[in-house]
């Protein structure tokens, strides 16, 4: 799966100001909804939240990869944000999170795209990559930093 076709520059935001995990998920919903045919911002928020209830998607190293399913009718959507101030995310290493990559997958394509998640996790496990992302000056630079990361 080529990650650059999945993530659009419009869905990339740098140094976002959010104060809690819930606020962050709400923001992800707002960013994703315009690109989804049959899902509102609230649907996205609820899907992501119900996944978090099973256990945090914070994989450590300040990174979280929330994911969820949405109604069929559009392509999968990815959102990438970095936060101005790290927030608590109940991560596996207990540390606050400042890089969030969210993936929303239509129900019928659900299984194939779970492998995309693993590719994303692998990419974000690379310290050079996350350093470049944290150092990005604007949204476009963040987008480029992520796309240029080689895994």
């Amino acid at each position, binding site marked *: 799966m080529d990650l650059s076709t999945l993530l659009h520059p419009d869905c990339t935001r740098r140094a976002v100001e959010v104060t809690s995990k819930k606020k962050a998920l709400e923001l992800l919903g707002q960013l994703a909804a315009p690109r989804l045919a049959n899902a509102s911002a609230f649907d996205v928020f609820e899907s992501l939240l119900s996944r978090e209830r099973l*256990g945090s998607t914070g994989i450590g190293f300040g990174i979280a990869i929330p994911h969820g399913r949405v109604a069929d009718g559009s392509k999968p959507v990815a959102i990438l944000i970095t936060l101005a101030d790290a927030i*608590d995310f109940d991560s596996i290493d*207990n*540390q606050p999170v400042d890089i969030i990559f969210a993936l929303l997958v239509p129900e019928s394509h659900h*299984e194939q795209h779970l492998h995309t998640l693993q590719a994303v996790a692998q990419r974000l496990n690379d310290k050079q990559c996350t*350093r470049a992302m944290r150092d990005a000056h604007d949204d476009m630079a963040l987008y480029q930093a992520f796309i240029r990361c080689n895994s």
Partner: protein
Amino acid sequence: MTEINGIMLLMGALLLISILAAAVSNRLGAPLLLSFLIIGMLAGEEGVLRIQFNNPTVAFFIGSLALVIILFDGGMRTHKERFRVALWPAISLATVGVALTCAITAAAVVWLFDLPWPIALLIGAILSSTDAAAVFGIFQSQNMRIKQRVAATLEIESGTNDPMAIILTMTVTAMIATAQEFSWWVITVDVLQQLLLGLVVGWFGGRTFVYMARKLTVQFSFFPLLAAASAVVVFALTSGAGGSGYLAVYLMGFVIGNSRLPQLMHILQVQDGLAWLSQIMMFLILGLLVTPSHLMEHWQLSLTVALLMIFIARPIAVWVSLLPFTFPWRDQVFISWVGLRGAVPIILALYPWLMNIENQQLFFDIAFVVVLISLILQGWTLAGLARWLGLEVPPSAEPDGRMPLDRVSSKDPLELFAFNMTERSPACDHSWNELRWSVPVECVGVLRAGEWYPNHSSLRFSDGDTLMVVAKAQHVDDVSRVLAAGGQRQTLNSTSFFGDFSLRGDVTLEAVAAFYPVGQLPAESAHHTITSYFDQKFYRRVVVGDQLKLGGVQLTVRELDEQSGAIATVGVKLLSTSNN
């Protein structure tokens, strides 16, 4: 005077060579104990130095004393938490298993070689104890961790089956020596008496020592010696009263090791050295005592007994002993194979020799050959087997250095941990202020290029720094999770083993199915939580690293709740499917 000098030179040199040899054999993956034994043989009457040593009484004395120290040390290192999954299986192995191994071996020897029953039983009893120290030494030298269900079972088994084998040997020997009529009744009563007395005195001895250590004010360095001396006293008292002294010191060690005594870390450090010294001495002296050319006299009998125990008696005994506990087959295969024989059988074989039983040398020679074969054949293959059976788990995060602050008296023992920062540590690129903690911990500075920076609060940690923190010893895991490097160099790395994502243990399989392709769930398991599903599949003895496949995903137990043993988190890993 010159004679004394000569003996000292000899003893010192042998010890020195053994320790140097340990470094070499570690690199070869060979069991350490084997190299000590061989050095002893090389120094012996038919080796290079041609030392004449033929005194079983001295060897027995040194061997027994060494065993007391080793078992005491083993008891102190047995954590209470391990009992949850392994106590009863291990006790079953140490009782039923030992009796079965002994009986099967004896029956086969009677049948194949036409020896009288008491002699055959004595051979079986002498050889029925296993040695876990050898096993864990090998894992440690390879930086390998295996599943706790297997590790704890082997460990507790070997601690408890030595007393059992010793009791059996002594009883049968006494019976042969006094030409008593052979009676199962006498054996049973004797065994029970030994066990009971051993348990009572050992527990009492442990409690007394803990009480004493809390009240006593002596020089700090005396505590480890006090512990060792108390163990020897408890051993001698129990044996004198007709109980099993070995069981008593093992239990005493266990009570002390789980007491949260402030001096415990110091005691353990010194004990570690003492236990190694004991191992080396014991194997050296046994290597010296043996006459290698005699070993070949009964080679048919020895070889048969060795193969019998490894391939028939032990597997059957393990299978029967573990029957009530339904262990996974991989665990059973491994436990069967790792019935490694250590020094105990050789020392036990001295007992008939001391009692002047007919054919006294026979037992010693057989025991020696069996131990040699076991150490070589099983010792060299067990790391590979553990990997092949999938029993390896990623090593948990831990500090690169630990210094107990045991001279400062606090309610809970404190420690100073040192962590070498790498890019694989979650704390890398962060400063101390940015880290969050679930347990109390304080940073005492950063070492950068050898320079100490106590004023660290805004310093960003980077590759090559060493971070020093103080926390309670019991919180070592919580602290290490944030500061230690997550195994890049290790053979098995956490992410590839557990998967990237984790789920809580108390969610239902149905809920998991909403996000991951777990396939068709059978109606009765849909309402199971992950915990109850694993409990059902692993018969309530779930350990970290246990895996279950569900459709296209693999769930791996990642963390357990320490108190209840329930699953805290499992890792989810997607198995590669054909459509990718």
